């Protein structure tokens, strides 16, 4: 086979692949437009440069009760379970700490929305180490099951896809931290304690 013919074949295959990819993407976008699924469940990893993750948990308690738990710093630190920390600075500034390896990551945020019993939202400040937005939304659950608490996080991982997978491997990706925090919140509100298989207290 001549060199020219080889090049033509490679170019043809690349063109076909590109066309197929574009078709699949357009199809996925069309499908997205035609359903009612939450946006973060879309079959894609990238949302305009952001990763998006979240979880909804139904908790047998009122929205007001759950909101109050989330605004109590002592309770929050139990809910975050040691991997995540949150402390309030003067004004509406909050610093989130992720216990990552090799060094903890601190992200400074501003509380950008606070509607008691409904919504809390934080946005990272311009100079923050990670560009992130975190939301906690509360709504009444159907069938008198209490409250649907939805945590939603959108972030730009440091070092892009590699950074995302590094965090995922460490168990410190924001999506996982959100899921775990919501589950601990549910345990604490519904049972008064956070389940552990440890036979000894770890916090002394």
């Amino acid at each position, binding site marked *: 086979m001549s060199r020219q013919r080889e090049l033509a074949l490679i170019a043809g295959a690349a063109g076909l692949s590109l066309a197929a990819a574009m078709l699949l993407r357009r199809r996925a976008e069309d499908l997205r437009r035609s359903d009612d699924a939450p946006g973060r469940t879309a079959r894609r990893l990238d949302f305009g440069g952001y990763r998006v993750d979240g979880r909804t948990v*139904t908790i*047998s308690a009122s929205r007001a009760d759950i909101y109050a738990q989330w605004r109590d710093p002592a309770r929050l630190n139990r809910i975050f*379970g040691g991997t995540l920390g949150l402390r309030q600075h003067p004004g509406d500034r909050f610093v989130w700490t992720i216990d990552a390896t090799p060094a903890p990551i601190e992200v400074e945020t501003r509380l950008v929305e606070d509607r008691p019993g409904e919504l809390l939202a934080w946005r990272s400040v311009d100079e923050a180490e990670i560009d992130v937005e975190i939301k906690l939304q509360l709504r009444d659950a159907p069938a008198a*099951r209490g409250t649907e608490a939805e945590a939603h996080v959108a972030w730009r991982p440091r070092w892009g896809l590699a950074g995302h997978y590094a965090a995922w491997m460490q168990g410190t990706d924001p999506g*996982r931290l959100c*899921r*775990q925090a919501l*589950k*601990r919140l*549910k*345990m604490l509100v*519904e*049972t*008064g*304690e*956070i*389940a*552990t*298989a*440890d*036979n*000894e*207290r770890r916090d002394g």
Partner: protein
Amino acid sequence: MRALTWQGKHDVRVETVPDPRIVNPRDAIIQVTATAICGSDLHLYDAVIPGVQPGDILGHEFMGRVVETGPGSTLKKGQRVVVPFTISCGACFFCAQGQFSACDNSNPVETQEASELLYGHAMSGLFGYSHLTGGYPGGQAEYVRVPFSDVGPIVIPDGIPDEQVLFLSDILPTGWMAAENAQIHPDDSVAVWGCGPVGLFAIQSALLMGAGQVIGIDHHPNRLRLARDLGARTIDYRHSHVLEALMEMTGGIGPDAVIDAVGMESHGFSPDNLLDAAKQKIGIGADRAHVLRMALTAVRKGGRVSVPGVYGGFADKFPLGALMQKGLQVRTGQTHVQKYTSELLQRIMEGQIDTTFLISHRLSLEEAAEGYRNFQENQNEWTKVVLTPG
């Protein structure tokens, strides 16, 4: 304290480990007075259940005396209690419906992710089992920390020997729920695969619920004898064609309900089981589902299928056609123990139910490894092992 720990496949050892302490307000510490080896412990012993780690303390059938309580416990020091193997908060949506083994709040957050990945949802915490169900230290030990002690343990009046009530912790309610899931109507024919402890209690329960005939299927003569002693008819699958025999014993209709009390480690040399065994051996398909396949094929059209036998992973060659075409109903699940303990204790105290007939061996906790080995290798003679610490 001394406790039986899992170290690897067919390797369990009694070791000295730290005593448990009160960690959460609703905890209690129980000093174990009797504990048993369960058939599902053999799935751990055979390393076919995922998520078991070296050093894990096994055992989910135990009872004992309360020696310490947290401020949220309703138990009192000195009380004798039987502890359900399911750990349940009593407060979540599922517990409120009596579905205690689906408790949302007892499986620790850290171990829920793997369970969600494998099963779609995290199930309740269990004592002495896989880390998919929390990795809680179990009851084949001198002491156990019991979370949510205000929901699970049932207080036993003094004067009733441990052996009469120990099995309220698992196998008696499991056999009862198996029969309940079979939705038995008066005079029904019910086939039960596996005449081990759960199968025998399912037979006993089915007869109490009004079944006309119960047919126990196994290949161990001693276990078949125990089934006959309870009032069952029997099929030894080494000697008879099970499907043909069941049709003949039910007037050509098939059993109204079938109960798979075997689970993921079916025995026998049928081609599907040999293939499953090979796959299980190399770790690409956890379950040997021969009995379930056979049960689905044997049950009558429109019949009921109850599955108390433990399955942990995946199965292929599954007779979905029979399930759909015959319009079958399937009910299964880990036992909602707390839902049944009061009623069953009452039946024991009134003499309607005897649980001691299946105990074949009584050993000290220090002899637990020998108990496991024999319970696994000599299932005909070793029908149930009770261990006593101290």
